[in-house]
């Protein structure tokens, strides 16, 4: 087929550039400037899709985002995208589209049997059946339904495209570039405001491109082109086409997506496919226009039945006839423009008008042109399978609830117009409570809640003259409040056709004894009878009707159906529309690609990664990393074919025997300075800090106010009023916020400054019996003896031309030191440690070995400090000062916390000394007890004790205090394990803590 429906000398497409595309396996051509929809129509193709429920043949009904039917599966290069709107895709080389939700083909679809059986599938039928036998719903019926539903197919591959974001601030955002939008942007921009003008379509101008009007002495499109060129030339204006503002959020934040790439033939490689704009505007001008409403009549869903204004748009912009034998079916005057445009191209149409008469200028013009008009008539039914082929029209009776006579009229398209629905979505999202206008039969914006102004036909202003006035006046007024420039531009004189009133009649009666489906929501197959049924069954709230019938819940979100639906409910209920109300307008206005919403935070960059300055060394030395929050930490250093277990055992054993080095940079470090620092710490920690001597560190525990242990770490007094606090890696940021909270809000009288220094210092822990020898070698001129640097001591040692901070603290339970050095020197220091440690058989160790070491020593960590344990549970009750108050202390006197027999941490050893106890196991008395089996507590951490070469675990169990020596069971039903165990001390190795002091 070769564009049989394209006519010459008409439209804004580029006829020099022919483009081939493939639809359901066949090649077709269109032109640059086409959409898929216009190209398909140019080739005479109307049948594009099947409906969701009844699989009825469906065609394009509109030319923009409101189209409810034209959804296809799109293929381009190696990508595919389901449910693409043919009215929105611009034609470029390499497009292939396929009809969805039909098998074997869109012309012959087996699923159409649903249509034959449609009387058995009314709204909500599935709630009434599929209940027997009991499990058949999810075993039989539901899988079948799931397969049948779903429309297009999602790609299984990652999306190869880039999506980017942009934050922008402006004085005035103008949404929509029709007459009122462009004029408000011009007025505001010339008055000095920073303006963004956003247009969803590739072409600016909206109705100015299709209506037969003049502004000044220019045609609509000429005036648009000049105005846009002028706006583009102004430095204070951003003009964006292909940009849909789809959400209006709090504090005048609007979001818009811009299509940057898909319309380009040869885009550059790093050009994003789409860009999400977060726009914070001081004022928003909503000039989003209006959408034509379909009329409702028997079998009003056949391909070839289209909105009258869309038919005009296909003709005027694309040079495409949607049919050569059209019927125009209307209840108002605007559709006459379509008839006139057809006539101008030599196509005779018949206008079927539900009104008794109209004296509007445009109707008289149509009459003059010889267009046949049938007043007081309506379409009762249509025929044609793949495309409409005839209409049954009839003269309406006086009460318009029946027909006086019926006759057949051949046609190949029907252009319908049921008046106009202002696009008030953004205003409603902003919080504007809409009001019903009974003259226009539609909802209009009422009082603004945020800084938004709705103008043009979105505000119910349907004449060009008034739209321009609104545009220029609003643009000036709003901009002047910001700039105060008082630069007002004159409003141009315009000329337009004259329109009269519409008929408040839009749902055609059925001929006697006929039960034709009259569709309200095309995509979801919601017919008048479904809405009647819902109301009959007592679903009276419009939200109930919507949910019961799925009205307006399809991918077009009811842009053409919502108002008809609720007017129908109001008719049935004999209420006025405002009493029925409307459903909520929720973002997004049109569906938005997920990739666009998320932007560049994908794949490895989904979250930031934090690395220590020593990271490169770990990588070079076969470090295997583990995620610790955002940090990457070496978990172990793999030698040969070692497993995690073997490597961590080797590393831990080497610490116990010789010396190891571990990167502890990620531990939080907080500088605490000021005269009240000690007092502050004394309140924050459960134990005393006032008298900590300078040059000494102390282990501290902090609680939340609800009494739970929050974090632990060591804090060192560097000078009288200067402390260095360390936190766990996980809680570093939370601890800093916690400290700031108390200093700024609770105790502002304390003069203390807290600053994170986590990043300033690289940290290495050296641990093991030979760590002192190593330290001595690293700092040959310093006194590293236990007198010179006692347990919990702190010294600053000169290291090359800088200073190292050396803390004698231990997490491993061995003699150990932590060395901090400024980060740029971190890797170098580490290399020096490794070099100097060679003679002591030093090995780097990772978090897994670190974990082994702390577990067998009975030190608690994150798996015990899990936000649900109090100090007693962790055997940290000795850290709770009785003499002073501290954060969270008062909570500890709660009944549950004082309970004798409360959980307490213990050690657990398998009786066979062989079977490791999986973490997350529970301790029970009787593994075979009836379920639910009472639990004594859970295993929080497990390791292979390198000291004793057998498994060892920590557990927090009820009455743990008195359980030592008991023989119980560790059970992990998930791993099918039941392990007889003995409860022992949590301090499995060196319970007296001699080594750290050695």
């Amino acid at each position, binding site marked *: 087929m070769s564009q049989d429906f394209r006519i010459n000398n008409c439209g804004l497409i580029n006829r020099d550039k022919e483009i081939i595309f493939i639809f359901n396996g066949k090649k077709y051509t269109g032109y640059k400037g086409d959409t898929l929809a216009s190209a398909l129509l140019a080739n005479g193709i109307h049948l594009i899709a099947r409906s969701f429920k009844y699989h009825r043949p469906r065609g394009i009904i509109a030319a923009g985002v409101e189209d409810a039917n034209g959804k296809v599966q799109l293929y381009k290069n190696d990508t595919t995208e389901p449910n693409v709107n043919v009215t929105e895709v611009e034609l470029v080389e390499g497009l292939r589209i396929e009809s969805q939700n039909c098998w074997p083909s869109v012309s012959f679809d087996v699923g159409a049997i649903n249509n034959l059986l449609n009387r058995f599938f009314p709204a909500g039928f599935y709630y009434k059946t599929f209940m027997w036998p009991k499990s058949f719903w999810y075993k039989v019926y539901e899988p079948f339904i799931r397969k049948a539903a779903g429309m297009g197919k999602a790609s299984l591959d990652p999306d190869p495209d880039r999506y980017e974001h942009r934050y922008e601030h402006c004085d005035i955002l103008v949404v929509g570039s029709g007459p009122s939008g462009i004029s408000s942007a011009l007025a505001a921009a010339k008055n000095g405001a920073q303006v963004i003008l956003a247009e969803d379509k590739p072409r600016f101008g909206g109705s100015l491109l299709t209506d037969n009007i003049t502004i000044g002495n220019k045609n609509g499109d000429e005036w648009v082109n000049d105005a846009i060129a002028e706006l583009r030339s102004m430095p204070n204006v951003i003009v964006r086409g292909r940009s849909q503002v789809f959400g209006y959020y709090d504090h005048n934040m609007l979001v818009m997506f811009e299509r940057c790439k898909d319309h380009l033939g040869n885009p550059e490689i*790093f050009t994003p496919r789409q860009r999400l704009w977060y726009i914070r505007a001081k004022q928003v001008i909503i000039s989003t226009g209006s959408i034509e409403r379909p009329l409702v009549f028997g079998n009003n869903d056949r391909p070839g039945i289209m909105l009258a204004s869309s038919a005009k748009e296909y003709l005027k912009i694309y040079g495409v006839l949607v049919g050569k034998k059209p019927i125009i079916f209307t209840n108002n005057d605007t559709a006459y423009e379509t008839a006139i445009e057809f006539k101008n191209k030599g196509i005779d149409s018949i206008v079927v008008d539900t009104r008794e008469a109209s004296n509007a200028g445009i109707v008289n013009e149509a009459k003059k042109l010889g267009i046949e008009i049938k007043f007081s008539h309506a379409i009762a039914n249509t025929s044609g399978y793949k495309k409409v082929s005839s209409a049954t029209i009839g003269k309406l009776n006086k009460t318009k609830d029946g027909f006086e006579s019926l006759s057949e009229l051949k046609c190949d398209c029907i252009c319908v117009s049921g008046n106009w629905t202002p696009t008030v979505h953004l205003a409603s999202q902003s919080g504007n409570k809409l009001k019903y206008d009974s003259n226009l039969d539609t909802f209009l914006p009422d009082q603004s809640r945020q800084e938004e102004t709705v103008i043009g036909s979105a505000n119910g202003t349907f004449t060009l003259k008034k739209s321009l006035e609104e545009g220029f006046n609003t643009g000036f007024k709003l901009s002047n409040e910001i700039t105060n420039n008082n630069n007002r531009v004159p409003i141009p004189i315009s000329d337009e056709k004259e329109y009269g009133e519409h008929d408040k009649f839009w749902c055609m009666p059925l001929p006697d004894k006929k039960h034709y489906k009259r569709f309200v929501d095309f995509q979801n197959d919601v017919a008048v009878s479904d809405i009647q049924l819902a109301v009959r069954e007592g679903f009276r709230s419009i939200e109930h009707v919507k949910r019961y019938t799925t009205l307006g819940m399809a991918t077009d979100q009811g842009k053409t159906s919502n108002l008809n639906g609720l007017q129908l409910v109001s008719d049935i209920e004999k209420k006025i529309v405002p009493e029925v109300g409307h459903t909520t307008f929720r973002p997004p206005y049109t569906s938005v690609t997920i990739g666009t919403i998320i932007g*560049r935070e994908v794949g490895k960059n989904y979250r930031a990664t934090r690395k220590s300055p020593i990271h490169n060394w770990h990588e070079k030395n076969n470090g295997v990393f583990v995620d610790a929050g955002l940090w990457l930490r070496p978990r172990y250093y793999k030698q040969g074919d070692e497993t995690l277990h073997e490597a961590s055992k080797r590393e831990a054993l080497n610490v116990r025997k010789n010396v190891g080095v571990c990167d502890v940079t990620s531990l939080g470090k907080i500088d605490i300075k000021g005269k009240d620092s000690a007092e502050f710490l004394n309140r924050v920690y459960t134990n005393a800090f006032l008298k900590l001597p300078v040059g000494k560190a102390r282990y501290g525990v902090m609680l939340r106010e609800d009494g739970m242990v929050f974090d632990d770490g060591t804090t060192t007094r560097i000078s009288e009023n200067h402390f260095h606090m360390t936190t766990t890696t996980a809680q570093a940021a939370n601890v800093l916020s916690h400290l700031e909270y108390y200093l700024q809000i609770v105790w*502002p009288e304390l003069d203390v400054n807290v600053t994170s220094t*986590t990043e300033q210092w690289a940290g290495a822990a050296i641990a093991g019996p030979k760590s002192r020898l190593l330290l001595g070698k690293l700092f040959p001129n310093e006194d590293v003896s236990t007198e010179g640097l006692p347990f919990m001591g702190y010294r600053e040692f000169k290291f090359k031309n800088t200073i190292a901070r050396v803390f004698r603290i231990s997490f491993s339970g061995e003699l150990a030191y932590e060395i901090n050095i400024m*980060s*740029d*020197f971190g890797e170098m220091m580490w290399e020096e440690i490794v070099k100097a440690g060679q003679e002591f058989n030093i090995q780097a160790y990772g978090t897994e070995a670190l974990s082994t070491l702390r577990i067998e020593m009975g030190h608690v960590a994150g798996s015990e400090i899990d936000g649900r344990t109090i100090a007693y549970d962790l055997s940290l009750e000795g850290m709770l000062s009785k003499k002073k108050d501290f954060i969270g202390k008062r909570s500890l006197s709660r009944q549950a916390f004082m309970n004798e027999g409360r959980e307490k941490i213990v050690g657990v050893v398998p009786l066979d000394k062989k079977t490791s106890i999986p973490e997350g196991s529970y301790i029970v008395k009787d593994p075979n007890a009836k379920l639910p089996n009472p639990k004594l507590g859970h295993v929080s951490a497990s390791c292979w004790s390198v000291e004793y070469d057998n498994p060892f675990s920590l557990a927090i169990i009820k009455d743990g205090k008195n359980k030592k020596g008991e023989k119980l069971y560790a059970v992990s039903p998930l791993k099918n394990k039941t392990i007889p165990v003995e409860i022992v001390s949590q301090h499995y190795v060196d319970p007296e803590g001699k080594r750290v002091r050695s």
Partner: protein
Amino acid sequence: MKRNSPLKNLHQTGLYGNYKNQNENDLLVIREITNLKIFQIVQYKSSTLNIDSLKLDGLSFPVHAGFVEASDTTRVQWNAPNTWIIISSNENIIDDIIKNFHENDFAITDQSHSRAIIQIEGKKALDVIKKGSPLNLNDFKKNNCANSIYHGITISIDMLDDDLNKFNIMALRSFTGSFHHAITDAALEFGYKGL
């Protein structure tokens, strides 16, 4: 002793992104700034000193949010109430600080090794920042600064020059890899020159 700057193994020189149809001299430039001294100075609540009377490297301390006092070697940024960040290429700035800012009045914290600094320069520099930061930069001028976020990473932005559109963007050191990726990735659309 040799220092490893945060971006040592990351930042590379050369041309990147959609640079092909552009004049190389007009391209956006991205470079790492290293070896600066960075100090945070906080005046204690109890300090009665008038900050107006103090100078560092000849610079007074800005008392208004978002302002920088700058010389060729040193920049004094307002960072928070009674809090300033000193960024200086003067190796011995600490001596000056210790001399002028007594520890009874000020908490001074060396942060020289804690930050990665990326400098971007060129007509598209603002567009790069706007891709990841919600900050309103429309009225940003030379010697304005602000803390904000960029693709979820806390940053500080310092505008060195508004003719060239030249910014220093600073982030915590451990985030370097992600930070550098985020900035350079945002620049690919425009094309850039790594220096």
